């Protein structure tokens, strides 16, 4: 029995990363390192309006005064920002008119990743914005969406076509100086997705951004901005992968969501950056700031994340519940393996009356990895009758891994109710015994239990994505999940 378990855990920790290949495409780089000229160069390359350059420079100056955060339960090696290339793009031959004109190598890359840009368009009705390294290569479905007034395009395009919206919303939820990495991103962000849903429109398809790091020694700094106007709805998906390399690569993104009155945004992430090898060498540093603002009354933001990749994850999707009766949700499954480290969780800031938030976090740690939940629930004195429920469970597989919980609860209002509970345990012997008693092999039983454990979160994912996430979980837990 113990041997079986060892074998399963051994298999689990040695499962391979499927997306570790690199694509040989012609790339355009700028010199490595970071200084004011680099910031100007990026802005110039993208032909940006003056206000954006100023925004970048302000951020750069702020960044210089800040220090790398060290409060996470993480062991972050020193990052040499002068060794990073801050802008890398597949060379554009000419403006793309249709999918047929996309570099076949690129299409092939996305096919290999299971994100077929063509197939997706035809079959599943998901509009995809594919971002490779620093730029968006293709956004599908834009035209169809435009008929409904939905703006879905790469960030660079949006800057050119809708500067007034960018100017109004950029940095309105995540200010430049929020933390070290937001300042960095605000200075050097290269591309990303922009999405605007007009009043009363329910987005007919799921919008999706697929991020791929391809080039070596580069960092990826993308920016996503979603604005849902009154009474609108959108479901947004995000996926990411990177090649297998011995060096660490930095990914520092910002996602901002604004929901106006009665609007709803559902944001789902399947994060599968390269986690590093079995010895903990290589992998992506995933330092991401995601925040949503429930601006108007009755608005809703829901974050769902499946975190399986990255050498180090530092990510706290949060919500500011400003509008009365607004609702925020956070569902997360974080799997760490080998030498992976994850410090992730959520922040819920209640400002409006009758606001409601839910946090469900499930951590699975195996190998020699460390998985921490860190979260803040803050009830402001104005947030009457607000309600929060948090549950964060951890599952330990193996005796050399760690699972930690660091919740912060701060309440200033007597009419609010805040509840938090957490458990940490390994797979229950009784459950295993029960399954085996019914003829299910040990290996399958563990798979069954792990799946059931994560189900609560996986169920929140949209159909197409849930399948991918489940597949991913099976890869991460290969050899143990049936």
């Amino acid at each position: 029995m113990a041997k079986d378990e060892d074998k399963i855990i051994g298999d689990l920790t040695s499962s391979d990363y499927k997306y570790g290949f690199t694509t040989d495409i012609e790339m355009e780089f700028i010199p490595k390192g970071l200084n004011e000229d680099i910031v100007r160069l990026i802005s110039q390359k993208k032909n940006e309006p003056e206000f954006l350059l100023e925004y970048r420079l302000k951020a750069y100056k702020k960044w210089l005064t800040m220090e790398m955060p060290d409060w996470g339960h993480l062991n972050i090696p020193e990052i040499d920002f002068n060794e990073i290339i801050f802008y890398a793009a597949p060379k554009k031959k000419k403006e793309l008119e249709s999918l047929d004109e996309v570099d076949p190598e690129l299409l092939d890359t996305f096919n290999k990743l299971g994100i077929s840009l063509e197939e997706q368009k035809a079959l599943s009705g998901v509009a995809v914005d594919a971002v490779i390294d620093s730029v968006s290569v293709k956004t599908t479905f834009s035209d169809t969406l435009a008929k409904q007034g939905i703006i879905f395009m790469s960030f660079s395009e949006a800057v050119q076509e809708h500067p007034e919206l960018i100017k109004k919303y950029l940095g309105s939820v995540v200010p430049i100086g929020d933390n070290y990495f937001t300042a960095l991103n605000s200075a050097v962000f290269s591309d990303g997705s922009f999405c605007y849903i007009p009043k009363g429109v329910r987005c007919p398809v799921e919008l999706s951004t697929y991020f791929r790091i391809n080039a070596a020694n580069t960092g990826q700094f993308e920016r996503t901005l979603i604005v849902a106007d009154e009474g609108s709805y959108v479901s947004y998906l995000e996926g990411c992968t990177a090649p297998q390399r011995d060096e660490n690569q930095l990914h520092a993104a910002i996602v901002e969501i604004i929901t106006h009155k009665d609007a709803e945004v559902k944001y789902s992430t399947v994060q599968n950056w390269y986690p590093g090898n079995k010895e903990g060498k290589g992998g992506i540093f995933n330092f991401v700031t995601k925040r949503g603002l429930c601006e108007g009354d009755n608005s809703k933001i829901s974050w769902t994340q499946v975190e399986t990749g990255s050498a180090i994850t530092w990510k706290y999707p949060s919500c500011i519940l400003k509008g009365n009766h607004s609702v925020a949700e956070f569902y997360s499954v974080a799997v760490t393996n080998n030498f992976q480290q994850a410090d992730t969780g959520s922040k819920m800031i209640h400002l409006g009356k009758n606001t409601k938030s839910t946090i469900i976090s499930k951590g699975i740690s195996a190998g020699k990895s460390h998985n921490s939940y860190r979260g803040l629930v803050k009830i402001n004195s104005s947030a009457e009758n607000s309600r929060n429920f948090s549950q964060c469970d951890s599952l330990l597989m193996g005796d050399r891994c760690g699972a930690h919980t660091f919740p912060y609860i701060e309440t200033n209002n007597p009419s609010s109710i805040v509840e938090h509970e957490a458990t940490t345990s390994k797979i229950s012997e009784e459950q295993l015994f029960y399954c085996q008693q019914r003829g299910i092999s040990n290996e399958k039983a563990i798979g069954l239990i792990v799946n059931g454990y994560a189900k609560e979160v996986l169920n929140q994912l949209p159909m197409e994505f849930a399948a991918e996430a489940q597949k991913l979980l099976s890869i991460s837990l290969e050899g143990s999940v049936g």
Partner: protein
Amino acid sequence: MKTKEIAINLKNELLNQFEQHFDVFASANSDFVKDRRRKAAKIFKEIGFPSRNLESWRKTDLTKVLSKDYALNLSSKLEKNNIHDFFSCEINQFDTDLYTQVNGWCVEKQESPKVYENGCIVGSIKAAMHQYPELFEKHYGKYVTNEKNGLIALNSAIFSDGYFIYIPDGVDQDRTLQMVNIINSKKHEFVNARNLVILGKNARLKLVHCDDSIEFKNSLINSVTEVFIDSGAKLDYYKLQNKDEEAVILTNTFFHQEADSSLMSNTLILNGGLVRNDINVLLNGRGANADVVGLYLVDGKQFVDNHIYIDHAVSNCTSNTTFKGIADDEARSVFNGHVLVRQDAQQTLAFQNNHNIQLTNTSKIDTHPFLEIYADDVKCSHGATVGQLDKEALFYIMQRGICERNAKMLLMLAFVGEIVNKISLPTVQEYSHDLVTRRLKGELSACDQCSIECADPDKPLVFEIDMSKV
């Protein structure tokens, strides 16, 4: 003046006093202690008072506390010799052996500790370090780290006095020991008390520690208590903190538990201007069990911060942390629980609970229940809630003709009952229950003296029945 300057000013002032009066307050100390004092002073000079930049001190602001003009009481001479002339804090019919400290100095047994027939030694730590150097040096300073916190280093450098308790192997000390720490001074007293409790193998002890004040002056208590519980020993430790609104108590308690030992620590905080309790438990032997519970009732502008750190260093240990609190007016409470399960500390059971009732929207409640786990075969869970009294329960009681005020009282009593009922000494339990009741009624606003007849347990709880509702 800025926070940093204030802290540095007081630090320099204290270090000056340390240099100037070293011969006075350390005159009767052994060389061992003198050496330790000097080392600790050096560390304090380096790290100073804890500032809010430290994660564990983020919520506790000492600026106001440190800006007072304090007087260090460096001599053990009492202003009034007979303690009973001005103090009689006795729990009704509570049969204990009472030891008092006034302004940080032991009143009884200053010259030599009392030796019981069964071999137990109780008395002043100052006397014990001379008479029992072997015992003292084996344990003193072993369970604390001066580097961890400037307050501990400061205490190690300039502590005045404190109690020393030794229970030999296999001895069941049937008489409850009661330690009372009183501040009675016209000045702003700065008291640094240092206590050492040693329980031998399979020993038993019940210890009650009370903090009281007589003169309502700005006093600051910075106490460090080290407790060693050898294998199979059992300690019941009760701490009652009932001070005035101006008082500041900063305590650091370290429990070191060996195999199969058992600890029951119960902290009742009824009053105090600023109370910060750091309770550290190290479970160092298989089968050890720690039960750390507490209750805080804060109103006015009071501030209470409890930091509970449970370190599961070896396998097969159990721990339970339960703290409950009620915050009224503009009071603020902080709970910071941290359970650490080290690698290979398998078969650990650890539970951590913090429940709060918030009565006003000017009060603040912060709770941080942390778990840090490095072993897989464990069961650890925590729960934290902040809420109000159950409206349905309130309605149910009022339906039966009990007025709202009493109905609320009943519910609050039931809420805190879990902690009070854990007190295994019947008289202390009754006394605590009574204190809590009066505290919740608002009758007990400050220091409670038993000589004032209000603590009469025979007096039943009177319910005003609202006849108009019947």
